[in-house]
C-alpha cells in the first residue's frame, strides 16, 4: 500500500492522497460555479448571488474559480484517463443498468477500478468542462470578440448554460450515488480506503489486481 494513507485492517486503498486532493479541488470549485451559475441562470435564484457575497463578486469569482475547476479536471484527466477507456465488461455493466438501479447488484457484473457510470461522469465533465471554458472565456471578455465575429458571442450564450445543465445532471447523480446510495463511497474519497467487501462487490476485477500487486491499480481500467 501507498505510504500516504493509513489503511485499517479489512480495508484496501482506493484513492491516493493526490487523487483525493484533486477530486475535492474539482468538487468544491464546481459547487461554487454551480451555485453562482444558477444565480445568473434564473432571476428566481439570484438570491444565491447575494448569499455568496453579492452579484458583482459572484460574477468576478465565477470566472476565476472556473479556471481552477478546469485545472482540476485536467489533473484528473492526467491521473485517470488511462483507466477510463470503455472495456467489454463496461458494456455488460450498462446492459445490467436496470438491475443496478433496482439495487439487484447480484445481477450486475463486477468491474474494474471504475464502472461505466463513473467513466461517463469522467468524460462528461472533461468535455463539458473544456467547452464551458471556451464559451466562458468569450462571455468573460465579450468586448475582445470583434463585432464581425459576434456570432461567437451568440454561440457562447447558448453553449455555456446548455453544457452547465448537463454537468448539473451528472453532478446530482454523482452526489446521490456517493452520499446516499453506496455506503462507503464517501469514506473512499475522504480517508482513501474501502472495505474489502465493497471492493469485491463493486470493483472485483480491480480488487483482484491490487490484492496481488498494489502498484497495479493505476495502470489499466
Amino acid at each position: 500500500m501507498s505510504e500516504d494513507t493509513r489503511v485499517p485492517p479489512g480495508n484496501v486503498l482506493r484513492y491516493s492522497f493526490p487523487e483525493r486532493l484533486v477530486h475535492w479541488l474539482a468538487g468544491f470549485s464546481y459547487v461554487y460555479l454551480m451555485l453562482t451559475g444558477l444565480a445568473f441562470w434564473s432571476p428566481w435564484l439570484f438570491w444565491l448571488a447575494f448569499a455568496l457575497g453579492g452579484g458583482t463578486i459572484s460574477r468576478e469569482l465565477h470566472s476565476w474559480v472556473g479556471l481552477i475547476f478546469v485545472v482540476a479536471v485536467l489533473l484528473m484527466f492526467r491521473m485517470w484517463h488511462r483507466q477510463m477507456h470503455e472495456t467489454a465488461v463496461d458494456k455488460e455493466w450498462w446492459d445490467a443498468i436496470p438491475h443496478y438501479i433496482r439495487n439487484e447488484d447480484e445481477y450486475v457484473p463486477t468491474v474494474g477500478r471504475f464502472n461505466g457510470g463513473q467513466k461517463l461522469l469522467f468524460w462528461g465533465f472533461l468535455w463539458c468542462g473544456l467547452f464551458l471554458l471556451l464559451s466562458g472565456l468569450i462571455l468573460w471578455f465579450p468586448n475582445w470578440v470583434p463585432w464581425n465575429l459576434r456570432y461567437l458571442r451568440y454561440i457562447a450564450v447558448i453553449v455555456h448554460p446548455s453544457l452547465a445543465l448537463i454537468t448539473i445532471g451528472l453532478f446530482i447523480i454523482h452526489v446521490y450515488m456517493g452520499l446516499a446510495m453506496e455506503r462507503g463511497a464517501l469514506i473512499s474519497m475522504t480517508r482513501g480506503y474501502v472495505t474489502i467487501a465493497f471492493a469485491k462487490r463493486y470493483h472485483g476485477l480491480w480488487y483482484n489486481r491490487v490484492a496481488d500487486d498494489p502498484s497495479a491499480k493505476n495502470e489499466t481500467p
Partner: protein
Amino acid sequence: MSSAGFEIRAISGHAGPVPGAGLKREFEVCKLIDTTTCIGCKACEVACLEWNGYSFSETKFDNSYQTMPETSWNYWNLIKFNEHEDPDHGLMLLMRKDQCMHCEEPGCLAACPADNAIVQYVNGIVDFQQEHCIGCGYCISGCPFNIPKFSPDARKVFKCTLCVDRVSEGLEPACIKACPTGCLHFGTKPEMKELAETRAEQLREHSGFANAGVYDPAGISGTHVIYVLHDASNPENYGGLPSNPRIPWTVQLWKHPLKWIGNLAIVGGLLGLVVHYLRFGPKTLEEDKQKKPGAGQ
C-alpha cells in the same frame, strides 16, 4: 441613472411581475436624426461628454473624420463617417450619429441576469442602473447595435441614457440642444415619426433620393431613436447600421425554451432521486452477505 418621475415597464432579471407593469401615463419619447442635414460638426459628441461628465477621450485616426472606431464606455455619442459612391449623386459623405437606439424590445434587457440592472421606462428610455450592474457583459452580447461597453475600471457597463435625467425634468437630451443644423429633433414617437416621414417624402420627391426613408426597424418593434436616411434600403452604408436588427436568437432560445427545459430537468431529476431512494433505498453491503450468486468474482 436617475429614475425620477418614470413609470417602469420592464426590469431585467426580475423574479415575478413588475409592479404597475402595463400602466401608461406618459408619452413615448423619440429622438429623430436626419442624416441628410447632418454636417458632422460633432457638437453632439461634445455636448454628450459635457452633460454626462466625461472628459474628452483620445482620438483614434482611421483615415476619416470619425473620432474613434466605435462608441466606448465613456464616449456614448459618435458620428460615423462613411464615404459612399452613389450612381446618381456621386461621392457622398454619409454621417450618422451613433448611440443607443432605445429599442422597444431591448436585447440588452432580455439578456441581463441582474435584478434591476437594466430598466425600460414607459416612455421608451432604456437605462442601465450601474448600482445593480454586476458587470457580466451579457448585455453586450444581447445588443444588435454594439452599444453597451464595459468599463475595465468600474467593472460595469455603460451606454447612452437618452439623457434620462434631463428628459425627466422636461428638457431635451444634450445632443439635441447642441445641434446647430436642426438635424436632431426630440418629441413624442408619433410626432417624430410624422416629421421623419415628411422629410423622407421631401427627399424622394424634390431631392432625387428615390429610396429615402425612415429607419425604425420592425424586428425589435421599433426604436426610440429613428433616422432619416437618403437610402433606407441600404442602412449598412451608414457605418454598419443593421438592416434587420433582432435580439440574437440564441438569447431568445436561452431565456425561453432552454430555461424551462432546464428547470424541469433539474426539479424532475431531484424528485426522481427522492422517489428512487424511497422505493429502493441505499445499496446494502453487509460483509456476511457475500455468498450471493454472481457478486464479486
